[in-house]
């Protein structure tokens, strides 16, 4: 009897804990109630609201919510209010599959949006394809996602393999007198980062002497000894295959402690996370840090400007501080909205046929047009850099593009 009472008490504690977390994270994602008699269009999403990808997961949640708010304010999708049903996957590839099954089988959502990261997108897309659902997503651009040959995957963002191409072209084209003499490639073995770094390495080739190529496990939590190896080689340029802010900040701290400042420091992800990045590393340290992406807060795209303005009004900060994840999530919503309107409903088979038809859809990230694999090759890869003591996040590549400004090269010393 006592044992049962203790078990019940413990279960009660866990129940309270789970309820508290749900209240804090999931319920805040609830959409406005249906207005009038129009039925609600339920959209199921699994997001990493805790775990390794939590910063990106929360940013994605904000992006999806911003889109839903705008859609509902404009009368909904074909007159039906949109309701987001968001479950947390704790950044776990197993939990994300469970979540999508729950969303489809139990919550009976009409549509699904993608999770964050290629690591979670692939298993989710495979799972939802069995139910005949389309998965439009913004953060599953790794080659491994497309090589699965799934017919239901649509990535609104440029495939990651293209990310560092403008950077590679620029650095190769520098006059030999100013071109970096040495370069170090160091990357996590994540499905997103490795193809990006490998492409850059292949493009740069022997035009810059490679003094090192290190691959570290994605589950690494202590990067100091790896960063020390890079700093000891004292390369002019460093290409870091990173998935998040903690990895980048650990390398930056180790470099400072080793009294080493690379002339170029480009990372595959981390510096694109706006305030989430500068708050972790300090704005002055952020100066000169480079990152590829296909969108930034200063984009001149009118839809993007409007979204950024709304975001800043709602969450504060500046355009430079807006996380690129927001635009990716918002673009997913816009793409699905266009498909629903074009097909006249939420029939996923019709939506997939429509998205495979070669139609071009305008989003905050620019044009979206899918090939047979679900890749969007219509966008341009850019390189961005933090400048002005880490207060401005600006486009620096491709050189010659009207929105590109001069690259800060060589990078200023840390904290300057």
């Amino acid at each position: 009897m006592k044992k049962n009472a203790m078990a019940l008490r413990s279960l009660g504690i866990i129940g309270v804990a789970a309820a508290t977390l749900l209240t804090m994270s999931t319920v805040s994602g609830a959409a406005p109630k249906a207005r009038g008699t129009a039925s609600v269009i339920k959209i199921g999403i699994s997001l990493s609201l805790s775990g390794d990808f939590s910063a990106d997961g929360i940013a994605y949640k904000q992006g999806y919510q911003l889109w839903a708010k705008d859609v509902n304010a404009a009368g909904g999708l074909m007159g039906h209010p949109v309701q987001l049903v968001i479950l947390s996957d704790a950044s776990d590839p197993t939990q994300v599959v469970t979540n999508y099954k729950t969303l489809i089988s139990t919550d009976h959502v009409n549509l699904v949006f993608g999770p964050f990261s290629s690591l979670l997108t692939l298993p989710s897309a495979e799972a939802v394809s069995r139910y005949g659902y389309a998965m439009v997503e913004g953060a599953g651009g790794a080659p491994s996602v497309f090589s699965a040959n799934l017919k239901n995957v649509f990535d609104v963002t440029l495939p990651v393999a293209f990310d560092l191409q403008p950077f590679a072209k620029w650095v190769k084209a520098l006059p030999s007198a100013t071109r970096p003499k040495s370069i170090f490639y160091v990357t996590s073995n994540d499905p997103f980062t490795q193809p990006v770094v490998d492409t850059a390495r292949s493009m740069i080739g022997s035009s810059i002497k490679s003094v090192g190529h290190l691959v570290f496990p994605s589950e690494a939590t202590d990067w100091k000894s790896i960063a020390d190896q890079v700093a000891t080689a004292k390369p002019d340029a460093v290409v870091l295959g990173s998935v998040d802010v903690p990895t980048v900040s650990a390398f930056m701290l180790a470099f400072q402690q080793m009294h080493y400042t690379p002339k170029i420091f480009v990372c595959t992800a981390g510096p694109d996370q706006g305030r989430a990045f500068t708050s972790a590393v300090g704005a002055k340290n952020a100066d000169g840090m480079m990152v590829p992406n296909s969108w930034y807060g200063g984009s001149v795209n009118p839809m993007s400007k409007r979204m950024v303005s709304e975001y800043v009004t709602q969450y504060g900060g500046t355009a430079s501080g807006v996380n690129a994840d927001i635009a990716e999530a918002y673009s997913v919503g816009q793409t699905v909205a266009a498909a629903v309107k074009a097909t006249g409903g939420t029939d996923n088979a019709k939506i997939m046929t429509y998205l495979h038809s070669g139609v071009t859809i305008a989003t905050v990230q620019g044009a979206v047009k899918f090939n047979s694999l679900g890749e969007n090759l219509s966008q341009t890869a850019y390189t961005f850099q933090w400048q002005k003591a880490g207060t401005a996040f600006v486009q620096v590549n491709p050189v010659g593009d009207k929105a590109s400004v001069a690259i800060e090269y060589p990078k200023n010393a840390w904290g300057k």
Partner: protein
Amino acid sequence: MGALTDGVLTGSVYALMATGLTLVFGVMDIINVAQGIFVILGAYLSYTLQVHFGIDLFLGLLITIPTMFLVGIVIERAFLARLKGPEKTAMSILVTYAISLVIEGLLNEIFSVNNVQLSASYVNESFKLFGIYLPYIYLDGFLLAIGLLGALYFMLYRTRFGASIRASLADQSAAALVGIDVKKVSTICFGIGIAVTAAGGMIFGATNSFNASTSYDLISRLLTIIVLGGMGSLAGALVAGILMVTLEDLVGVLWSPVWSTMSFFVVLIIVLSLRPQGLFGKQSARVA
């Protein structure tokens, strides 16, 4: 040489964090899977004192260590003291996991999920010794860890209260029979176990950016350390903490970082197959 130094300096801080875990298990038979989130809570307390009150990270420990001690006392009295019987250890995992989830949710609400890092001039600075850059923060962290571990050792082996703890570690029933208030010892032990996370959290937060979710990575490492060192053993936590980080760093430098984490687990499996109780653990099960 640099990897060896990094390993010893960083490993000692992990050992300090793991000490609380192993002490609590040794005395109370409780596996505190919330230890990772307590480390992060300690880091956020230092962050708050620094950002909002301008208090130096090390000076702030005079506030955060007693605060975390009190947090530990309250949690022990409110939740853990009620756990009894043969399923106490298993139930403690569930209860401390629930506590961990609640604290994680609260931290996310208060501080958001954006990563932060503790900053001070000595965090970025280093000095050169025999051709190796030694960051002040790692050296300070090492000295702090050794100092606190030394203080714990002194308390355990040179004080009357320490004798009570050791008696409870050996046999709770026998300790109670000779007049030791085992409940009180358990409560204070849990408080101490949580108090050390304030120091560990401060050093961790100064050398890594973190948010509440970072606790998941931490707890897996801390549990591994105490399993290798022997559950309940302070010396084991120290040796295993340093061994884990040093081995990972050396393999990363001499071979490849890809194998660094795996190499430690290979050592763990070998040690456990030869000594299932861990490096310094006791072979016989303790009588509850």
